[in-house]
């Protein structure tokens, strides 16, 4: 039976990959098959691998994990004629603060993800897939295992699937608490039983990924969109969004809104409308102060910067990012210093420690910011904080360093007045108090 929905859907949603959310037993294979599940599988069987890749290219699908890399292009990088085995790896590490969508996609529609993996397998001549799920999602690992078992039992996984002559196996793999293991190459090291340290690129996973074999690694949402793309055609999917920003995406609205929740919206959907119409506006008639558009690593937008289309290119123009779709809304009472303290404590805690600028930079920032927020800051700290961010940006081994630098730089730049207000030990929002929190 279907779990009670996490949040009510919004009439403004365009339900493509979340269309089964809320259906009784949506996670069962029968429900899936009964709601044109696996149609795309058969269609793909009729297509050549090149055609499948072209279809994905035509859909304008871009990676939903954060980087927004054009998926069709990525698929075309996998050397499908390489004699080595090739692997499909699903990134279900979902750890970017503000992001909670992959969870729903696996919980409500596990077979959509499985079908997406099957099609990816056909496209790149892979017969094994691994779903790397963060350790905290234990119930989802069990949940996916059940779905996978059902698929095997009913001949939708394993040898000669449904007599199609195509073989595919899927396994889940548990993480154990590490944001960095969401970074694709750190994930692969983790999958191989090591510390989650990112790898040198090139070679990219598409060429040498899991166990040094060609690997197609993508986010849960990305793979989940594939069945719809193959079923209804790339162009149809693309048409849902804006040019070069095909389709829909799961937007996780959190923070100061009346109806926080995960909503499937077409790319290009205006950010301000997400806050006010989809998520029911700010509680208690408060005013909007700022929005982090795509997870805590994205540069923050001030209220007056939010009236823009929610797609990769528009956000790039606004010097921010769509990231992982984690939209964090902050009202006028929010203490931006406190918010930044918490964001930086996260990155300091999660830095893998491999490279100097990230390892030392995030920790230094954490120490200054906590002191600063406690009212023990000095004026020069403000510039220092920004400088340290710039000192990390673009200089670290992987993008975690940037992920910590970008909010830092943008918070100081856009809310300097609030930092200055803290100098006299007071916080404009009365929130400044000794943090009794562990500093990890």
């Amino acid at each position, binding site marked *: 039976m279907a779990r009670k929905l996490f949040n009510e859907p919004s009439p403004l949603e365009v339900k493509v990959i979340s269309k089964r959310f809320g259906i009784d037993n949506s996670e069962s294979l029968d429900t899936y098959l009964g709601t044109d599940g696996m149609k795309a599988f058969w269609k793909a069987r009729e297509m050549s691998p090149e055609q499948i890749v072209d279809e994905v290219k035509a859909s304008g699908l871009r990676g939903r994990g954060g980087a927004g890399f054009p998926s069709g292009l990525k698929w075309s990088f996998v050397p499908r004629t390489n004699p080595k085995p090739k692997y499909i790896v699903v990134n279900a590490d979902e750890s970017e603060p*503000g992001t909670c969508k992959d969870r729903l996609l696996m919980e409500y529609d596990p077979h959509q993800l499985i079908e997406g993996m099957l099609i990816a397998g056909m496209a790149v001549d892979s017969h094994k897939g691994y779903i790397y799920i963060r350790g905290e999602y234990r119930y989802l690992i069990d949940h996916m295992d059940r779905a996978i078992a059902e698929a095997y039992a009913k001949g939708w996984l394993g040898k000669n699937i449904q007599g199609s002559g195509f073989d595919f196996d899927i396994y889940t793999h*548990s993480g154990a608490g590490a*944001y960095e293991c969401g970074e694709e190459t750190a994930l692969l090291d983790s999958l191989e039983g090591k510390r989650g340290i990112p790898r040198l690129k090139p070679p990219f996973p598409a060429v040498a990924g899991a*166990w040094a074999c060609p690997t197609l690694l993508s986010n849960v949402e990305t793979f989940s969109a594939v069945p719809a793309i193959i079923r209804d055609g790339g162009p149809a999917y693309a048409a849902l969004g804006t040019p070069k920003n095909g389709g829909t995406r799961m937007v996780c609205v959190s923070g100061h809104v009346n109806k*926080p929740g995960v909503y499937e919206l077409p790319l290009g959907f205006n950010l301000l409308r997400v806050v006010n119409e989809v998520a029911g506006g700010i509680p208690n008639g408060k005013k909007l102060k700022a929005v982090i558009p795509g997870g805590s690593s994205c540069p923050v937008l001030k209220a007056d910067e939010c009236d823009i289309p929610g797609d990769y290119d528009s956000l790039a123009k606004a010097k921010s990012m769509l990231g992982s779709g984690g939209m964090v809304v902050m009202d006028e009472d929010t203490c931006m210093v406190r918010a930044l303290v*918490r964001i930086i404590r996260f990155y300091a*805690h999660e830095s893998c420690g491999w490279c100097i600028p990230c390892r030392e930079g995030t920790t230094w920032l954490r120490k200054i910011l906590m002191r600063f927020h406690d009212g023990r800051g000095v004026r020069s700290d403000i510039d220092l904080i920004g400088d340290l961010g710039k000192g990390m940006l673009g200089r670290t081994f992987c993008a975690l360093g940037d992920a910590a630098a970008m909010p830092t730089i943008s918070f100081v730049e856009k809310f300097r007045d609030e930092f200055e207000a803290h100098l006299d030990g007071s916080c404009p929002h009365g929130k400044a108090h000794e943090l009794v929190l562990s500093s990890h």
Partner: protein
Amino acid sequence: MTFSPELEARFSKMLESYPPGRQRSAVVPMLIYAQDEVGSITSELVAEVAKRCGVTPLQVEEVVGYYSMLHRKPMGKYHVQVCTNISCLLVGGEELYEHTCKKLGLGNKEVTADGQFSIEEVECMGACSWAPAIQINYDFHHHVTPEKLDQLLDALKKKAN
């Protein structure tokens, strides 16, 4: 060192799920599942996992130190993990964490004398849109208020004795 039949079954299945000769891949999942049964990562467990996955104990130690869900000393029977990351913070996550600390008289990663409860301030757990959120062991609880938390803990306390 042997585990429950269920876990042994899981492990043998796990070891087969990776390409031949790649048993090392089982290190992380094996550790976390074993921890659930053993209670914590003991040096005996490290040696055992090393043996099963064909690596040196040092290579396992490196992994243990890296992952934040792996603990070297046992946490409480009920490990209460409160998220204070940004989305939770904005709707009272920090206050909720402080409340929990006071309620149980514990600090971060501390365990009650009777070993029943422990607290951990954790990072974003993927419940941002239903914040503030906590996890007790692996169970999620959403939209948690101090009152709701009290009820949860009291219920567990009753179960305990």
